């Protein structure tokens, strides 16, 4: 068990506290999964609507265990040369040019093709050694000496083929490079994958991960999150604001506001020195919370109801 690697993650209550002091308020479920991930050395696949703190969880985790965070942002067309490793072609070419004369010396006096070949073979694959290897995020995470936190963000955006590429990394924590052999992780990193659920991931990938679904938080939890992120906002105001956001989420919107939007809203209210959540203030700042014109219109139509909900 790698409890020794990440001593900060060996107790669920301690995890909750440590995360909280790092500014991330998490439920017991989240803490349990982090604990299990550290103990079982399994990657965590985090799913949930955008803006509930999936990426933030990985970042906070890196902060708590005090290890570097290696982040791989996925996108369509991501392939192994950008995710795993690449040979430094330019350097290879440059070196062959520079070493041309040396080659002449080596070959000096060799008789016939066979002998020249044999002499060349003695030098092995100098050009395919680690000196010419450009590590990309996945390989980099394997190379961290004391382990680290690997965040593979928005895996659902990557191509289906890329998932298969990940399997070796996720289950064995190793990378196979044909020219060099297999590179094993020095110390197993904590791996987090996030997905916005835009498509189903393959079963093979799912099977290798622990699953964590983060839904929108409850009113209490969100109030605590806002309070910890925006401590300047008065308590009563925070409560009102969170209840308002929850009421908005129950409307039929194109994009419901996420935690990050609640926090942004709270911050802008602080900037505006708002003391009370009143109708005109809400109307003026609604665009911080809602990103589509249609949504804003729907919300404005329901404003009295929403305000009533906010008042509790």
């Amino acid at each position, binding site marked *: 068990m790698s409890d020794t690697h990440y001593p900060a993650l060996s107790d*669920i209550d301690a995890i909750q506290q440590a995360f909280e002091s790092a500014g991330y308020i998490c439920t*017991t*479920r989240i803490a*349990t*999964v982090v*604990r*299990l991930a550290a*103990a*079982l050395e*399994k990657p*965590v696949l985090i*799913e949930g609507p955008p803006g509930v703190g999936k990426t933030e969880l990985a970042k906070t985790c890196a902060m708590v265990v005090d290890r570097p965070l290696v982040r791989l942002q996925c996108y369509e067309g991501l392939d192994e040369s950008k995710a795993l490793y690449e*040979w430094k*072609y330019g350097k*290879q*070419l440059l070196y062959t040019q520079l070493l041309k004369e040396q080659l002449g010396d080596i070959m000096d006096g060799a008789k016939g093709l066979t002998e020249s070949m044999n002499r060349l073979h003695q030098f092995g694959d100098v050009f395919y050694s680690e000196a010419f290897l450009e590590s990309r995020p996945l390989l980099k995470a394997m190379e961290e000496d004391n382990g680290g936190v690997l965040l593979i963000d928005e895996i659902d955006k990557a191509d*289906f083929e890329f998932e298969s590429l990940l399997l070796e990394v996720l289950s064995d924590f190793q990378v196979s490079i044909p020219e060099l052999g297999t590179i094993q992780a020095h110390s197993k990193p904590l791996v987090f994958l996030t997905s916005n*659920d835009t*498509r*189903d991931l393959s*079963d093979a990938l*799912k*099977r290798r991960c*622990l*699953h*964590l*679904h983060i839904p929108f938080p409850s009113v209490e939890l969100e109030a605590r999150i806002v309070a910890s992120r925006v401590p300047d906002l008065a308590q009563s105001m925070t409560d009102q604001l969170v209840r308002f956001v929850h009421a908005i989420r129950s409307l039929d919107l194109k994009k419901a506001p996420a935690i990050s939007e609640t926090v942004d809203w709270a911050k802008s209210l602080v900037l505006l020195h708002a003391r009370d959540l009143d109708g005109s203030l809400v109307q003026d700042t609604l665009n911080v919370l809602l990103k589509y014109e249609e949504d804003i219109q729907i919300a404005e139509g329901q404003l009295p109801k929403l305000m009533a909900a906010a008042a509790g």
Partner: protein
Amino acid sequence: MAVDSPNTARAATSSDQLLAFVQYLRGKKIPVSPADTLDAIEVAELVGYRDRSLLKNGLAAALAKSRHELTVFEAAFDDYFQPAPERPPAGGQTDGQPDGSSTDAPDQATQTDPATQNEDLLEGLRGNALFDALDSQDESALSVAIETAAAEAKVEEISLFTQRGQYVRKILDALGDEALREAAIEFEQSEPAAFEAVQALREQLRERVRDRVERAYLIHASAATEDLLDESLSKLKLGNVDHSQMARLKRLMDRMARKLAARHGRRRRRYRRGKLHVGETVRRAIPTDGIPFHPRWRKIERKRPQIMAICDVSGSVAAYAKFLLMFLYALQDVLPRTRSFAFSAALGEVSDLFAKLPVEEAIERVNLKYGGATDYGRALQDFSELALAEVNSATTVIVLGDARNNQADPRLDLLAEIKARARQLIWLNPESTRLWGTGDSEMLLVKRHCHLAKECNNLNQLERIIDKLLSDKR
């Protein structure tokens, strides 16, 4: 037996119980692989069985792999690991003496006979492992004995509700209940107190065994029974599905839709040989000093079909239209641009209705609005005016109807035009193929103008057709 009952043979029974729970989950249609099971066991060892919510969170991480599975998992967990109601420590008796000297039915025992005499009579039974375990309330010994007997009786092969009694008998026999029964018979005439005592113990035993069989049924057979019901339902003519089966049908349909969505949901690509991807090829050629050893080809994305469903909602076919539309809308994730039209006499677009309302309600509204004597000619005419301009090579038009046109002109020319423009024109007919072309059915003529004409009147056929449609092959 329950998670938080303190004195069971923890290690062994717990992991057995976890395995049974995995079985139970599989019965609920959550696919759990052996590797997942191993993970779950590891998780359970780590978090322990004491804290229910902790165990639930932990197991959820290992076993539930999507949001849908999470909801099913949570319900299943709550069902399965019910917090045990505090069992009275020894089947109703006042457990005064720890060495079990006072057996059951203490009232009668003290009334008629001194307890000691009772003891003597039962002495003959001492040494019988089963009796000892029962008599001293040795929980773990009893559990182990029942588990062994259950395995011997092959209780996991139980497949029907009605077999429960039979399995209870088998397990009791395997446990050695025979000896107790003989003793009871012996006592029946002569020693009523001893008889009562033995019978009470036997009843306790029977109760436990019944529990065990009940659990086995729940785990092994309820799934099979469900499967059986599901299977027969998916073969049933949709027109004959009655109201009580609707909930199950809906569930079944959702499951099929999920399966199809998973199979066809991901973006599919195809390499198109012939068109070189210059940029990528040059990039690939860098390590070979500019010599393109690995040419790359441009890819094309296979488009998901846009579906236009034209449904006959007149009396005889309405039920089928309902199911087709339900299925199509259950697939909205994969088929986001589905448009639906309903007709009987006149035709109108009903997409909005279906987007907004629950399917049943929408169907009723549609019936009200477009009901009347079926007229395919007019319906196709209306469709042409309404949407023909938007039918293109990515559109699949599905017509659902019996093609019985009351001898009127079916306007095959319009059908031919739709076929020419659309990627596919599919006609689904709830009537069986044998009836096509009989009476006022125009099906044989219609068939010639369609890429595909199929009989479709149960869920299985419907699933197969939609699957084919999504795989985008003609």
